[in-house]
């Protein structure tokens, strides 16, 4: 077999895999969502419950993003710019949520705030609901996406060293000045990259949210949960119409990710 033949066979095999595993599932969502015509599609997408689910999903993603970005910046600053014992252990601990099933991520919050939880009496006294309510959804999403930003920033800031920050500090710059004028310009694309990955996962998280949500339609249903509810009610067209909103968001995220990755590689030289 010539190298040309091998090349063609390998490319075709790759194309077949990607078609079966990635392209056809995407096409399924779009075709099924439009199967009963454009009108039905629009009415499913603009349905009251869908809009409420979209709002909850966006709210959850926004809070998650704020918390995890703050954590990412603080943790990367302490890990990349200082020397201390147990640094390796700390980075491993930060990565824990990645190795844990999303079901367990939801479960832990039920075990804390649920009826048998040790915080339950206090929450009861304060009349605050955490699980089977919006705060639980937000908490579970934060847990699952916790390492995304810091994991991008730590290696990036470590590779840049501390010389510039030290120089700025010796010239009397404050911590905030050093970060915003010296460090930030170097890490902005890396930060954005982490933020994009975090957003994608936060918008789409299903397992953890499914455990803590209680599936109250119009109250604690996020978009992915709404897809599940409709699918289980055999409302295929409606389910896929709602799913198509998430597909469009996913495609936008993929394109943004590729642009940012390109800038990031160029910046790194």
């Amino acid at each position, binding site marked *: 077999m010539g190298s040309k033949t091998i090349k063609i066979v*390998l490319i075709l095999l790759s194309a077949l895999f990607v078609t079966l595993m*990635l392209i*056809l599932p*995407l096409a399924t969502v779009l075709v099924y969502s439009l199967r009963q015509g454009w009108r039905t599609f629009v009415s499913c997408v603009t349905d009251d419950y869908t809009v409420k689910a979209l709002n909850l999903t966006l709210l959850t993603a926004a809070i998650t993003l704020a918390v995890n970005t703050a954590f990412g910046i603080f943790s990367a600053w302490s890990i990349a*710019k*200082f020397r201390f014992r147990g640094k390796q252990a700390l980075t491993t601990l930060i990565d824990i949520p990645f190795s*844990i099933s999303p079901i367990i991520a939801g479960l832990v919050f039920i*075990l804390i705030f649920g009826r048998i939880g040790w915080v339950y009496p206090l929450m009861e006294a304060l009349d605050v609901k955490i699980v089977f309510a919006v705060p639980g959804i937000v908490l579970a999403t934060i847990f699952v996406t916790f390492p995304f930003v810091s994991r991008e920033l730590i290696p990036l800031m470590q590779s840049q060293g501390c010389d510039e920050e030290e120089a700025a500090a010796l010239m009397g710059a404050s911590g905030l000045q050093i970060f915003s004028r010296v460090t930030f310009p170097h890490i902005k694309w890396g930060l954005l990259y982490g933020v994009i990955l975090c957003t994608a996962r936060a918008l789409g998280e299903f397992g953890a949210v499914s455990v803590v949500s209680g599936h109250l339609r119009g109250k604690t249903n996020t978009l992915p949960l709404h897809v599940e509810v409709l699918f289980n009610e055999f409302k295929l067209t409606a389910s896929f119409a709602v799913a198509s909103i998430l597909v469009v968001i996913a495609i936008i995220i993929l394109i943004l990710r590729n642009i940012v990755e390109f800038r990031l590689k160029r910046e790194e030289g």
Partner: protein
Amino acid sequence: MSSLKTPPERPKRNVIPGFGLSMGVTLTMLSLIVLIPLASVPLVLRDYSLSEFWRVVTDKQTIATYKVSFSCAAAAAVINVFFGVLLAWVITRYKFPGRRILDGLIELPFALPTAVAGVALTTLYSDKGWIGYLFSKVGVKISYTPIGIKIAMIFIGIPFVVRSIQPVLEKLDPQYEEAAATLGASRARTFMSVVIPEILPAALTGFALAFSRAIGEYGSVVFIAGNIPYKTQITPLIIMNKLEQFNYPAAASIALVMIVFSFLVLFGINILQSKISEISRGS
């Protein structure tokens, strides 16, 4: 996850401000969001006797879920290593129209919500779906069988393998392969003795990441699995079932087994990887 040890460092006074504040914020948030919640799993089990714990985690139906999860995740990860190497090779070594789109699409399982992937795969591979229909003609059912579980796990795991191997192939200079070829090595032999040893640690990392993700995965698997006890019930699903029955200690017990298992996998792979890099450096 890196096994590299930092060289002994000379303590030096750091002039950069903000260590106390940033470390304080980091540790507080890490404790509140990750560590304390996780600690509540063993805490719930404090009144639970060891024999009760053992009875729950070795219950026949629970054991069956371990088998389904483990065997499907392992099979899916093996298939992913094969296609991961293939895709990484094609993307880095060949120029062809659509290469950039192929490269971008690999990331789709990270960007697409798992529930959407789940309903799409279930429909596509069911008896009425485009592909499932073709297979049902020859008597093969995919959705609601272990094959379906593997399909979902392949979907969720493929980017881990490709993205682990790709950077290594990009750095690997084709000159070595050319040199081996000029010295008379066959193409297959060149690949086996020059390329494979170089990408082995990365492939292993990809395997481990895909495997551990598949073990814990819920959203994309739950729909296509169909949750038939002893047949297609995966471990995360039995935890969910225990939760729905408000049997919290049982859910926590099985969760504890999963947590310990996923830590062991990561730990084992770390050791394996450092061994491999020692060998490749030593030779």
